[in-house]
């Protein structure tokens, strides 16, 4: 290495000019975890958008079976939506309770979230069972295929969420508000809110647009 190279380096280095903000080093664990989980959620949303796309392509392919407007029950869907939106609120409360280390409000918030999630699932299950019983199962037409898959995929996520929720409660019960438990709680809350957002999409694309047609 010649002398000039080093001198040139010192001049070229933005550090000495002071324009560039120096990167401080690896981020703390909490940030890394949340960030990674965000990336996962984005990928999950990509997955959902494929099912949305499939629904958009297949919605008119009813193969002489029923159309959306003939099978959707706005009444049920409204209750489902209210349940899910409320549960997002109670989940947020549980998160705050966890942050301030309040066990009582944490358990309460989680329990209410769980109950609301289960009500949602029960209504959805009844809707599905009812359709299948009337001969309008997913193999009746491409439209029904897309409908069951999109809504069912969301339902599957909610079920997984409920399972995760129970595990979180058990973890807090057994281990208290440890740093790693809190990190997981944060991820769980992100997950639950994301499901809410996806439901808004399902609700609009499937039930509002489809119900009107």
């Amino acid at each position: 290495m010649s002398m000039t190279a080093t001198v040139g380096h010192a001049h070229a280095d933005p550090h000495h000019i002071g324009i560039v903000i120096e990167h401080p080093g690896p981020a703390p664990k909490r940030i890394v975890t949340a960030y990674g989980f965000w990336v996962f959620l984005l990928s999950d949303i990509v997955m959902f958008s494929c099912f949305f796309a499939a629904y958009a392509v297949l919605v008119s392919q009813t193969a002489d079976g029923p159309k959306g407007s003939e099978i959707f029950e706005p009444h049920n869907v409204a209750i489902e939506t209210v349940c899910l939106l409320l549960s997002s609120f109670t989940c947020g409360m549980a998160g705050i309770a966890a942050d301030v280390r309040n066990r009582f409000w944490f358990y309460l918030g989680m329990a209410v979230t769980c109950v609301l999630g289960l009500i949602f699932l029960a209504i959805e299950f009844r809707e599905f069972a009812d359709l299948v019983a009337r001969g309008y199962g997913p193999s009746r037409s491409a439209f029904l295929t897309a409908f069951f898959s999109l809504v069912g995929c969301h339902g599957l996520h909610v079920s997984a969420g409920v399972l995760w929720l129970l595990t979180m409660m058990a973890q807090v019960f057994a281990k208290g508000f440890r740093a790693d438990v809190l990190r997981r709680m944060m991820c769980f809350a992100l997950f639950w809110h994301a499901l809410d957002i996806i439901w808004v999409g399902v609700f609009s694309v499937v039930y509002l647009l489809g119900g009107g047609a």
Partner: protein
Amino acid sequence: MLGKLDWSAIPFDQPIPLIAGAVVLVAILAVLIWVIVKGHLPYLWHEWITSVDHKRIGVMYILLASVMLLRGGSDAIMMRIQQAIAYQSQGYLPPEHYNQIFSAHGTIMIFFVAMPFVIGLMNLVVPLQLGVRDVAFPTLNSVGFWLTATGALLVNLSLVIGEFARTGWLAFPPLSELSYSPGVGVDYYAWSLQISGVGTLVAGINLVTTVLKLRTKGMNYLRMPMFCWTTLASNLLIVAAFPILTATLAMLLLDRYLGFHFFTNEAGGNVMMFMNLIWAWGHPEVYILVLPAFGIFSEVVSTFSGKALFGYRSMVLATMAICVISFMVWLHHFFTMGAGPDVNAIFGIASMIIAVPTGVKIYNWLFTMYGGRIRFATPMLWAVGFMVTFIIGGLTGVLVAVPPADFMLHNSMFLVAHFHNVIIGGVLFGAFAGFEYWFPKAFGFRLDERWGKLAFWFTFTGFYITFVPLYAAGMLGMTRRLQHYDVAEWRPWMVVAALGMAVLTIGVICQIMQLVVSIRNREALRDRTGDPWDGRSLEWATSSPPPVFNFAFYPDVRGEDAYWDMKSHAQQQSFEHEVPEYHDIEMPRNSPTGFICAFFASIMGFALIWHIWWMVILGGIGAFATFVVFAWRDHDEYIIPADEVARIDRINLEERRSLVSMAGAI
């Protein structure tokens, strides 16, 4: 009780897969027995299988890829022999079997050779280049690897139990629907890709987070080595594209298992939707594979030219441009399927636009070499061989991106030649270059140069002898996936291609020899400096192999080519002699989670393929239980005391000081 599984699943009437399976089984058993008898099992378990160290996981990925390369290569040999002799005859392979071979070959090469190879290299190198101690989620990293291995296991299982898909590597419907493929072949295909796809997604999330959130002090974005940039681009593509594959395969599976109608011909299903979805994943996939290779070439070319990479910022820009544009061209894979001239024109032009950033890269590499002090070590040979080969592949690619030309060349041997041209000349050469380049870092000794160069030359010439004839055959109208044919003009080209395959095989043997010879002579080839190539980025700043914690301190980066800067400073100041103050280091504990998860995933995948429902449930419960148990752990880290860190680091520093004083003396 056992679903669709019974004795008829074992192909007793077909000697080839049975013999192959038996050989593999004997080999596995032999290795297992050797390991147990020699008492290596505890070592393997503690140091490798349960390891969450990114370097170890990277090595295991590469090992998996190499083994599968031999498997996929055997398929290639069988196909080339078949096409050489199948002129006006049935050849030696029954059609059923031939169709399984090309499907398995494509699937294995893409998912279980190219993918694990590049992911392995990224795992091994990126945290080192970023100057950090591990990836963002070490245990998840191990889960990702083992799920990939599960997929590979299932594909290989199909050789002896049941059958593999006969649909080609993308399983287009309606051929892959239950009515045309009632066997378990497509199910093997779909489940192994679903499971390994989860593993890939996990790796993608992990590496994206690592690059964006874990960089050492002063490592601003525009100071990251090029390989980190391409890793970021490639893994962003994984995160955005692999969920599409997951959804598409899920739809296909729903059609097959529950009578849904996504892609069927009846009840309003839409086959073109499959084409759109699979290529919306498939086109980015080729860039997922080739971008890391571009990164490797950037590192190799600048190191072996002794110069900083020319046009670093334009290189970053080109990488990110490719990352974005690659999502907008998927339709060029079905120009011939009736989208109409306007749509075709738009996608044709969009496809050609990608050639621009790619061209920028090629020129940057050339300018990096220009005026540099070039050393033609083996990695550099692969890099230069790549540049020549990839330009040809790129040109033929632009050709097939012209819709009228594609109407002639679609599904012809020309296309087969084109994509092998880019995927072997691009991805595989890149993987080999990276392997040669970073091997000393991973194991502490260099590879034998003589065998390495032989391997390069045989592979390089073998490649041309094999694939140039395919261009010719394609021009003469030969379509792909032909089991036998009656056109006399094609015959000579097929024979030449088979000869080329023989030369390629010699290249592979040379590479195996290189490994054997180098391991034998490892004492003579030992590299104590940790910096055998006079490297420029931080992975060369630590010892080879690096300690578990990679760096005793987070290095402080002041510019591009961080380690090169440090070296030039050190030469002036003859290395600061002040004794640094060491601290305890926390590292993640080993965990069997990945292995156990993969165990249950294998059971579940196998049971799903054969419709053994109780076993599916058992596997599912097992996998969930593993996660809960893992989440229940109390101590996920252990402490390496400061004394120990100091002891390890001092050895490294000593070696480095002597290196600098030696260099100063010259």
